[in-house]
């Protein structure tokens, strides 16, 4: 992928992260899903593999996942200025929104309109995540790689039913990949 710098890329990083950060409820995985839609599918600034790698890296690093993912995306797309543009875009919406709300926060947190709209938006968030899970999960299954499919199912069971910490799941997947490649190498060596 060609590295495009210049004002246009910086603006795409800032304005895209601004919009995503302003509309993203429900945690880090929602924001990385929207980032994939914007920066992989629409703008092709980074590859799908990079976005998935960045998601795993953002999860294992300290700090807000959205900020961590924005840092990685920004560096990759446009170096230091890109990182600053993407991070700025990510932090401005919470800053502005909380500043406005703290002027009248009791009224806001008890507002029926806000609660109803939130309830509907949550359905939309679930649909956006489900859409990406269908696309990416389908690709993993089509890859017909036994290691990948087993890792996906095991990680899902660990996260969904066993409450295993995200970082342990990512470490486990990394170890599985390492083991699989060492075994493959050993087999080649004995041939």
């Amino acid at each position, binding site marked *: 992928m060609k590295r495009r710098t210049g004002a246009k890329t910086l603006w795409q990083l800032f304005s895209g992260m601004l919009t*995503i950060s*302003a*509309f993203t409820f*429900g*945690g880090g995985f*929602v924001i990385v899903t*929207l980032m994939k839609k914007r920066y992989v599918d629409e703008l092709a600034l980074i590859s799908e593999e990079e976005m*998935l*790698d960045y998601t*795993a*890296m953002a*999860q294992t*690093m*300290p*700090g*807000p*996942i*959205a*900020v961590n993912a924005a*840092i990685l995306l920004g560096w990759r797309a446009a170096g230091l200025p890109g*990182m600053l543009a993407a991070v700025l875009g990510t*932090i401005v*919406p*919470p*800053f502005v*929104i*909380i*500043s406005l*709300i*703290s002027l009248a*926060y009791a009224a806001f*947190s008890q507002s029926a309109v806000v609660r109803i*709209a939130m*309830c*509907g*938006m*949550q*359905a*939309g968030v*679930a*649909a*956006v*995540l*489900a*859409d990406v899970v269908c696309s990416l*999960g389908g690709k*993993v299954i089509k890859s017909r790689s036994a290691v*990948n499919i087993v*890792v996906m199912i095991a990680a899902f069971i660990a*996260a*969904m039913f066993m409450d295993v*910490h*995200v970082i342990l*799941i*990512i470490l486990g*997947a990394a170890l*599985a*990949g390492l083991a699989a*490649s060492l075994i*493959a190498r050993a087999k080649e060596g004995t041939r």
Partner: protein
Amino acid sequence: MNMLLVLFLSFAEIGLLSVGGGYVAIPLIQRKMVDDIGLLTLSEFTDLVTIAEMTPGPIALNAATFVGLRAAGPLGAVFATLGNILPSVVLVSLLFMVYQRWHGLSLMQSVLASLRPAVVALIASAMLSILSAVVFGEGGMGAGEIHVIETGLFLLALILLRTKKLHPIAAIVLCGAAELLFAAIGWI
């Protein structure tokens, strides 16, 4: 110590210790802000968590603005926010350099290749938790009620996303607007 410096350092500490997102950050914020330095009362902290759940953005950044404003005005909010992201900016940038230099190695490639399906599984698990709240309400499946309208909105949005390439942010906003419409005509 200067209040701006206190805010900057406290939120830098919260940023540095919160590995793994919002649910790790919430107890850290409580311990630091309510128990250690007393910038928030417990009831203000509860309000903060409620607001954070109702607004976009990472909870640690919401907390930084909320606490910073109360303690030292707009400048306080800026210092708290910058403090919160400082550890990320330093450590994640270093990680990026490592990744750029070594992700081409075949051993790194195979590790990364098996991380990707795990990430897909984690997104699926996050999706199902949210979907369960959408379909069954906050009480979960055990509460025994099904929210038909919200479930319908989810299915409709998913179909439009997959077949009509509806923009994700449009899908989220339209679902919120539709819910308000249903409430206005008295279906909810």
